């Protein structure tokens, strides 16, 4: 056979292709460098202009030059061409440049395939419901492009409805694959290494301002479902990093010391201790702490209780995960603390904060409990205020805070309190984490946000172990009991995330977050374990991913074979005109007018006109449209006309029978 001339892309298909390019690429503009988005936008606009002018495409050497320059610029921007960000930037550039060489249908196909690929990369950045919806819509658009490429000119509506139909038909299959496709925990499903950048959360150090900047964020840190009632707010201390080391400016968590100190802590639990179990869905924060409620007694697999009483995972939490805990709210921990830990808990840098040292030195010798009370009443009696906008503090930050500014929030209070304790000879440390949370009335989950970030203090008392002391509570009890919003003085501007005054807005947010949570729980959190549970519930027993692969492969093979056989039997697929014509003929068949399969349209119309004159006009019109569509140069109007005939035929009987009976 002679080599066929490649099919050119027809002009009418270009808007579809450009729309697909835009839809697949546009969401990436948010995280790509501005110059790249501008370049892509300019390229697409240029292409639209060329299309409008019906001008010829730019020469290949110019395109090659542009692309090479773009690739070089991306390489320069990211210092690499690999990894998530640079790779996506490259694809983005290609997607914007490809419409410039839409010469043959093959080029259009390359664009569509690139579109499918680029769509997937959106999941590297977000896996939320809006992204999912956008992807579904864009995948439908890509199907529409394929329909337009191969189906010829049709009305956008008919293309759209066919594409939507295809997508809907694919839905059960994708659901089935979602449920049953073998899930392998491992790097195969992992994200590229650089996908974990820019996740917010607590850090391993506490410098002035680190928590207050976190409080500005309404992002969710974790969602917790309690097995029973949610404990009172004042008991909800979610423990994160513990800061032992202070250099005068910054509190740091020390790496877990080797040897005895890292051994499991000793915990005594009172007989009548309140115990709660809960499942916590933790957002990725790239740290190892799991933010358990003080004090966890049962830990999820792969986690351990550190010497600092925090639940620690083996690996940093790089993706949202579900963790099951039980915690006891009444406990005595590490009654016999290692001396080096206590030593560390008394460490203070020399040469800082002389006034605070002097104040605390006056308390030395008193009972530790007395010292704590003195410090707390110092906060209570002096006019301290809780604010998210503290004044800047100088070199002696604690002195400035305690004696001059007296305005601050949890990290100031906790830091200053621990400083005073250490100066007075009581072992103390700062604990960071989250405090409180908000119950979503829609689904009953307790939602803990970044804005619930908190810092408090812990002191070690002989015979009673580590005791939590929250100096913030002494100044602003409402912070601990009701949350940040109620603790702030009137008139202070709330962080954006907390300004949900209107009741309907709050309700809306609850609803949205509940939907999101179900999405996280059931879609994103559909882990290999959950899949096993689902399979077991479906009666498939303990199918591991190998048997599952085998079963799915067999099922797919059978389905494909059946489809192929059915395809052979039915012959080649019908073109739209043929499809509509057959529908029309089915309508007439219902009225006893049977078209023989060898009968041409006009011959059939002539016969119908002979046998049933009342249907003559309709059939002649339909046959004319069909004949032009199938055997001549039909256009979209003919297809529309033919469809109208089908509708008329479908609605005809009542009218026509009425006419014939007269």
């Amino acid at each position, binding site marked *: 056979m002679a080599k066929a001339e490649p099919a050119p892309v027809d002009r009418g298909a270009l808007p579809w292709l450009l729309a697909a390019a835009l839809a697949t690429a546009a969401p990436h503009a948010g995280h790509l460098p501005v110059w790249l988005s501008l370049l892509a936008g300019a390229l697409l606009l240029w292409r639209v202009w060329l299309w409008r002018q019906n001008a010829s495409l730019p020469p290949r050497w110019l395109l090659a030059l542009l692309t090479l320059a773009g690739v070089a610029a991306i390489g320069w921007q990211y210092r690499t061409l690999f990894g998530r960000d640079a790779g996506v930037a490259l694809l983005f550039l290609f997607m914007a440049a490809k419409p410039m060489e839409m010469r043959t249908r093959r080029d259009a196909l390359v664009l569509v395939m690139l579109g499918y690929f680029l769509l997937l990369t959106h999941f590297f950045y977000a896996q939320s419901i809006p992204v999912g919806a956008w992807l579904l819509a864009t995948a439908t658009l890509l199907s529409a492009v394929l329909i337009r490429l191969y189906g010829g000119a049709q009305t956008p509506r008919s293309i759209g409805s066919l594409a939507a139909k295809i997508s809907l038909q694919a839905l059960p299959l994708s659901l089935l694959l979602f449920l049953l496709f073998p899930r392998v925990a491992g790097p195969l499903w992992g994200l590229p290494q650089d996908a974990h950048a820019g996740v917010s959360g607590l850090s391993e150090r506490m410098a002035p301002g680190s928590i207050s900047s976190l409080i500005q964020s309404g992002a969710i840190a974790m969602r917790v479902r309690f097995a029973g009632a949610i404990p009172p707010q004042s008991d909800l201390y979610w423990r994160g990093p513990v800061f032992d080391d202070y250099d005068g400016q910054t509190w740091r968590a020390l790496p877990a010391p080797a040897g005895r100190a890292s051994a499991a802590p000793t915990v005594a639990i009172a007989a009548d201790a309140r115990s709660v179990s809960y499942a916590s869905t933790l957002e990725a924060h790239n740290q190892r702490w799991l933010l358990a409620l003080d004090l966890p007694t049962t830990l999820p697999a792969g986690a351990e209780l550190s010497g600092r009483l925090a639940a620690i995972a083996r690996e940093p939490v790089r993706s949202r995960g579900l963790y099951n805990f039980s915690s006891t709210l009444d406990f005595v921990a590490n009654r016999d603390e290692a001396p080096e830990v206590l030593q560390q808990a008394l460490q203070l840098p020399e040469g800082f904060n002389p006034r605070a040292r002097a104040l605390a030195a006056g308390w030395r010798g008193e009972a530790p409990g007395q010292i704590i009370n003195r410090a707390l009443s110092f906060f209570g009696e002096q006019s301290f205020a809780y604010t998210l906008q503290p004044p800047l503090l100088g070199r002696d930050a604690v002195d400035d805070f305690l004696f001059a500014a007296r305005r601050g929030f949890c990290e100031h209070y906790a830091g200053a309190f621990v400083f005073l304790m250490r100066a007075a000879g009581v072992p103390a440390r700062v604990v960071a984490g989250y405090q409180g949370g908000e119950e979503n009335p829609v689904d009953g989950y307790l939602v803990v946000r970044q804005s619930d970030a908190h810092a408090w203090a812990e002191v070690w008392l002989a015979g009673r172990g580590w005791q939590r002391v929250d100096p913030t509570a002494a100044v602003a009890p409402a912070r601990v009991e009701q949350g940040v919003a109620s603790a702030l003085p009137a008139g202070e501007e709330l962080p954006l995330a907390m300004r949900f005054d209107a009741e309907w807005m709050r309700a809306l947010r609850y609803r949205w977050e509940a939907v999101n949570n179900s999405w996280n729980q059931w879609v994103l959190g559909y882990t290999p374990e959950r899949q096993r549970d689902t399979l077991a519930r479906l009666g498939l027993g303990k199918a591991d991913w190998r048997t599952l692969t085998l079963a799915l492969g067999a099922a797919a093979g059978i389905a494909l074979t059946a489809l192929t056989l059915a395809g052979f039997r039915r012959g080649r697929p019908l073109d739209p005109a043929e499809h509509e014509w057959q529908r029309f003929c089915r309508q007439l068949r219902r009225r006893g007018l049977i078209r023989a399969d060898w009968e041409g349209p006009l*011959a059939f119309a002539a016969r119908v006109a002979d046998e049933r004159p009342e249907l003559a006009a309709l059939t002649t019109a339909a046959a004319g449209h069909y004949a032009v569509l199938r055997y001549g140069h039909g256009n979209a109007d003919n297809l529309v006309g033919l469809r109208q005939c089908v509708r008329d035929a479908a609605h005809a009987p009542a009218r026509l029978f009425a006419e014939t009976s007269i």
Partner: protein
Amino acid sequence: MPTQAPAPLRKESPLAEILDATNRVILGKDGEIRMALACLLARGHLLIEDLPGVGKTTLAHTLAAVLGMRFSRIQFTSDMLPADIIGISIFERERSSFRFIPGPIFAHVVLADEINRATPKTQSALLEAMEEHQVTSEGETRPMPDPFFVIATQNPSHHIGAYPLPESQLDRFMMRIALGYPDHAAERALLEGGGRRESAASVSACLAPGMLAQLQSQAAAVHVAPALLDYVQALLAATRDEPRFVHGLSPRAALALLAAARAWAFIDGRAMVLPEDVQTVLPAIARHRLRLAQTGSGAGSDDIAELVQRTPLS
């Protein structure tokens, strides 16, 4: 109401005029006349096989007159020689050279009457001219006039003294049609009006010179969609797979089928060929090319109709 269907018949076309004029001479044979005209527009040659006296010669004569073309008639007999058709060279004493006297074949429309009465040698002289559009006589090749259209008639071959045309030569005719007896009303009109041969001569030309070539190229440009080619190929395959035929239609027959269908659609005033056109011209194209394996005779119209009905459109 839905929009008006396209492709109405163009009444003002010269084709309608030609058909009208011919129909006035030959009564009640509208379909056959159309078919003959389609054959002519498709640049094919026509074989009319029927009993003597049903109007074969009249049809040929009238068509030539209506189209304004030079007409000649050759009555084939068993003692005829090729030179009687092609022409001979005569030695002219005054000029001391041979001069070619063109035979009756050098005309636009040649009526080869009772072609099966001549010997195969003479037949092949005519058929060669038909195929090659030129004749070679005494080392000199002479082109035929353009257009060149042969209407041959033959008596059904079981008549005495006939040399039936071999298959290979039948294939040179694009179509074979039969005229048949006129129907009752037409025959009555014929009887009332007396002999019609005079009318054939009195018909005036409907076409200006050169117009026919233009019509022929317009007919050849009628659109054929891939779907129609699918259908034509399905029909061809059906003739080749059919055990009752000795062999199927040749590619030349397929080309003839398509050209004739185009011409038929063109006469109908349509810009594209429909399966109906193919089905209509198929018997005229196929019957003389398909032989029945059982009897060795040509396929009947029933055989062709059955073939069509067993070949679905899509």
